[in-house]
């Protein structure tokens, strides 16, 4: 297919605005998938994605479309995630396109990720094709949404398309607009071949599948190529496109989007953002890669059973194949043994990784409370980055502590302005400004510590605004904070896995709530258990779990011995799932006890 007839586009939107439905409709409409084959939202191939109704991985599909002008075009559609955690994924796939169909739900209007994704698209120099969706619903307010989208993108009213992805109304117009408005792919078919790896997927039989966009030149099967970033030389075992199934081809040409399989099994050797070039005539410069994303939220992941450490490590390695944003490094906890400190883009990312580990790799895990990375400046002038609260240096050595701040934007209906202000006030935030997107909707900007968002800000925001508010945030630097380490001691010994870093003003309250919560979660033992919260040497809260006074006093004559022995053996088995900390048996969910408390330290119940 010549470059003039290739169009590479993406669909971007806020979560649930209908981009996946639109993708489904497009596939159906163009005959890429028969209605019979159509499973709702086909492109979300991971079970987890379908379950949660969200897209995690970007997928790429080639569609042959006969336009109204009679010509056939090759449209390459790339589906993208819509959650703030996965901005990174979005920007990767946008680098492979020339235009972005921006879908906005007319019953919701412009929301936080609508804005964020629109800016991402602009950053990547994409043509934006705004589409107003869900016009079939009674609550649809096209006029209002038109206003907002116009404000956001500068698009004229004629350029705005109105559709219903669900019913299919207007979808063909979208394809026409893609054909008409998307620039032809840049790139030189005669230049030395270059392909950008914008994603990868690990297949256990075939190795790493690289998702590529051919920028210059072309590639052929059995050709020898080189990964410009790693220097590795490999043979192209297979290449082709997604139709949506993998369809092998003899060649991939300039401007096309598809996959390359090189037989490489090692994840690290196929880096997303890398450039593939032909060995016979290699390119001089690699394509610009991506900026390295920084993980924002951290937690400790430990296998419940110590001997599963190796399995956890293998699983994390495999996950990183398809998730370059996941970072991990080994960590040792006195309480929990050997595990990993993992970094995520956000809480949803963390949740999903954890679920994938448990489900796909069949691992039982203990997760510690999520936290952010603090910068601790010591008296001697050095700075220690702290990703695990237990690593916080002693108080005497600390000069000051800095924590990451974010610039948060909340988009909400005007009626909730007061509520959101109240919510943010309790989070050590600084109000920046407020902008009206329309008479009904407002965008509020705050600067606040990421640590205040990490636990439950999003949930609180949604519940207090009945789901109407949306949140986007971006890292905005480190700022000084009056923060202290809150230690939890069981039977007088500090338990590193339970430590928290909290603002000093709230330390006592948090300490008392946490200690009480733990008292509820830790079962009675053969010894009395003292639970304490302390800041340095100062105890701020204390509770006691009373000792178990007696077992059931049962008879044990000859005929009872086997039964009793089996009962005790079974109880022993049951204890395996507990963690032994010193002499105390602590159930796994005690480590997440803090999540059951809100930021004021009150029990969420």
């Amino acid at each position: 297919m010549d470059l003039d007839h290739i169009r590479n586009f993406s669909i971007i939107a806020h979560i649930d605005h209908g981009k996946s439905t639109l993708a489904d409709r497009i596939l159906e409409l163009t005959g890429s998938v028969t209605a019979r084959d159509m499973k709702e939202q086909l492109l979300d191939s991971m079970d987890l994605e379908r379950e949660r109704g969200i897209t995690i991985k970007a997928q790429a599909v080639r569609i042959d479309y006969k336009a109204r002008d009679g010509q056939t075009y090759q449209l390459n559609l790339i589906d993208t995630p819509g959650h703030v955690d996965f901005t990174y994924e979005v920007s990767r796939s946008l680098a492979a396109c020339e235009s972005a169909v921006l879908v906005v739900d007319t019953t919701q209007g412009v929301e936080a990720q609508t804005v964020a994704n629109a800016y991402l698209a602009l950053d990547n120099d994409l043509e934006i094709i705004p589409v107003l969706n869900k016009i079939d619903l009674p609550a649809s307010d096209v006029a209002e949404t038109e206003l907002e989208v116009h404000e956001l993108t500068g698009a004229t009213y004629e350029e705005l398309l109105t559709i219903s992805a669900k019913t299919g109304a207007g979808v063909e117009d979208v394809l026409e607009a893609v054909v008409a408005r998307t620039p032809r792919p840049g790139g030189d078919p005669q230049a030395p071949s270059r392909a950008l790896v914008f994603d990868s997927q690990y297949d256990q039989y075939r190795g790493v599948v690289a998702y590529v966009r051919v920028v210059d030149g072309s590639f052929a099967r059995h050709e020898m190529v080189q990964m410009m970033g790693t220097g590795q030389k490999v043979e192209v075992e297979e290449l082709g496109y997604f139709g949506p199934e993998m369809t092998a081809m003899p060649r991939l040409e300039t401007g096309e989007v598809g996959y390359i399989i090189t037989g490489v099994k090692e994840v690290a050797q196929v880096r997303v953002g890398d450039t593939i070039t032909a060995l016979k005539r290699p390119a001089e410069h690699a394509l610009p890669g991506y900026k390295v994303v920084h993980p924002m939220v951290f937690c400790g992941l430990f296998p419940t059973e110590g001997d599963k450490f190796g399995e956890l490590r293998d699983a994390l390695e495999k996950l990183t194949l398809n998730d370059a944003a996941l970072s991990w490094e080994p960590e040792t906890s006195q309480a929990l043994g050997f595990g990993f400190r993992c970094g995520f883009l956000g809480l949803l990312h963390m949740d999903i990784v954890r679920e994938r580990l448990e489900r796909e790799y069949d691992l039982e895990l203990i997760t510690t409370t999520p936290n952010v990375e603090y910068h601790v400046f010591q008296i001697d002038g050095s700075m220690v980055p702290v990703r695990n609260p237990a690593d916080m240096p002693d108080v005497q050595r600390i000069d000051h502590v800095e924590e990451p701040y974010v610039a948060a934007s909340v988009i909400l209906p005007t009626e909730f302005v007061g509520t959101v202000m109240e919510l943010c006030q309790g989070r050590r935030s600084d109000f920046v400004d407020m902008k009206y997107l329309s008479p009904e909707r407002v965008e509020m900007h705050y600067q606040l510590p990421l640590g205040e968002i990490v636990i439950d800000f999003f949930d609180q925001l949604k519940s207090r605004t009945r789901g109407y508010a949306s949140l986007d945030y971006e890292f905005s630097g480190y700022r000084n904070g009056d923060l202290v380490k809150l230690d939890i001691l069981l039977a007088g010994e500090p338990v590193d896995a339970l430590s928290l870093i909290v603002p000093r003003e709230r330390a006592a309250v948090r300490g008392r709530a946490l200690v009480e919560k733990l008292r509820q979660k830790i079962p009675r033992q053969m010894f009395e258990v003292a639970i304490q919260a302390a800041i340095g040497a100062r105890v701020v809260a204390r509770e006691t779990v009373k000792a178990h006074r007696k077992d059931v006093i049962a008879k044990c004559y000859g005929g009872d011995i086997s039964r009793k022995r089996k009962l005790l053996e079974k109880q022993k088995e049951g204890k395996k799932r507990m963690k032994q900390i010193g002499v105390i048996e602590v159930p796994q969910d005690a480590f997440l006890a803090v999540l059951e408390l809100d930021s004021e330290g009150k029990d969420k119940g």
Partner: protein
Amino acid sequence: MNAAAGAGRGRRNAAPAPRHLYVHVPFCAVRCDYCEFYSVPLGVAGERPAPLAPFVPPAASPGPVESPTPPVASAPHERPAPLFAPVPDALPPGDDREALLDRFVAALVAEWEGERIRLGIERLETVFVGGGTPSLLGWERIERLLEPLEPLLTPRAEITLEANPDDVSDTFAAWAAGRRLRVSLGVQSFDARLRAELGRRALADPETAFAALRRAGVGAAVAPAPDSGARGAATWRSGAAARRPGAPGLGIDLIFGLPGQRLSDVEDELAVVARLRPDHVSWYELGIVSGSALAARVMPGASAASRAAAELPDDETASEMFRRIVTGLGRLGYEWYEVSNFAQPGRRCGHNSAIWRGHDYLGIGPGAVGTAAGVRRRDVPDAAAWLGALEGGREPAREHEELDDATRARERLLLAARTGERVPLADLAGAIDEGALPALAGAGLVSLTGGTLRVTRKGRYVANGVCVRLFRDSSFLEA
């Protein structure tokens, strides 16, 4: 009965023969609400007894309450027998209670003979006749059972018999005293109100029964004079059996933690004990067994009204009850020699003590358990089948459980935790997690001296917990 003489000779070259015998008499008048044992309700004397239905045990997995297993249909009737109630059906013709019990004792003797020869038993130190309600057999039948054992009994042999107050007549008491038996009287509670809560059928007042036994001289240090006692006993005494010094005693079985029982009730119970001064007291906590009538009343699923009425003491109260029992009996001079067993000096139950020390013993009767040469076996708890086999000249069906070294070590620990016996750590090696010892010792639950382990009195209260802590994680065993 086929005498396996060759087997007997071979047996002598293997492990030494057991020196203790347990006899299980599964019959009861009716089943108590809380009973979890194999028991065959016969109906009240004078009424038609129930046919022998196969026993369906409570759900196999241990735990406080599990869902009850469905009942098994009893042959020859098609209808499944209710799990825990007498089956009021017609009997096979020719059967009645007395004949049934006669046949039962005859079969017991037959089983004994077969096992004596097979195992090469030459001496018996203890005999324990338990149940059910062994006293239902009546003293004459029990005598027929004990007679064949006579030649093997050691001079100080202990013979224990469980008895219900209903079966204690003066004749019975005189016989028991003359026979120098250890009698274990099933009291459960001296308070009639609390007994009723258990569905305990015993109509006779336990105090009265106890007094009768004492009056006749049961448990007395010296054998009663030949001319005292009732006529029936005199008949017996005129028999040829040599009088043995024996190891007599009069003990009672009590239960605490009963529905509606308060701390003051336990104090009252202790006061009665103080007054009566039994030689031995077994005092257990009420356990709610799934499938029992009591469970139906108190467990989730039961009506709220019946559960409220049940009023089981809470954890704190039950703990306090037990603490008072231990200290109260201690003050009365009883030695707390096992978690739920207390004895005046020299009056411990030798049979149980032997079992708790891991000695081999033979069990006969349907549902009876015995352990010998590393194998635990149990006569299948089906009285009808058991009877049929023995009357047909065959051995009854039995289940076997092989006990490997690690299992035996765990059992050793389990029993030693209950008795406070000192066990060499070497005997437990490989079965316990020695890393757990310091913490337990630090908390005063175990005492470690000279390479031995002993669970302290404090530890005895939480003996189960100590064992669970010490049991080696099975995953290590597989590694």
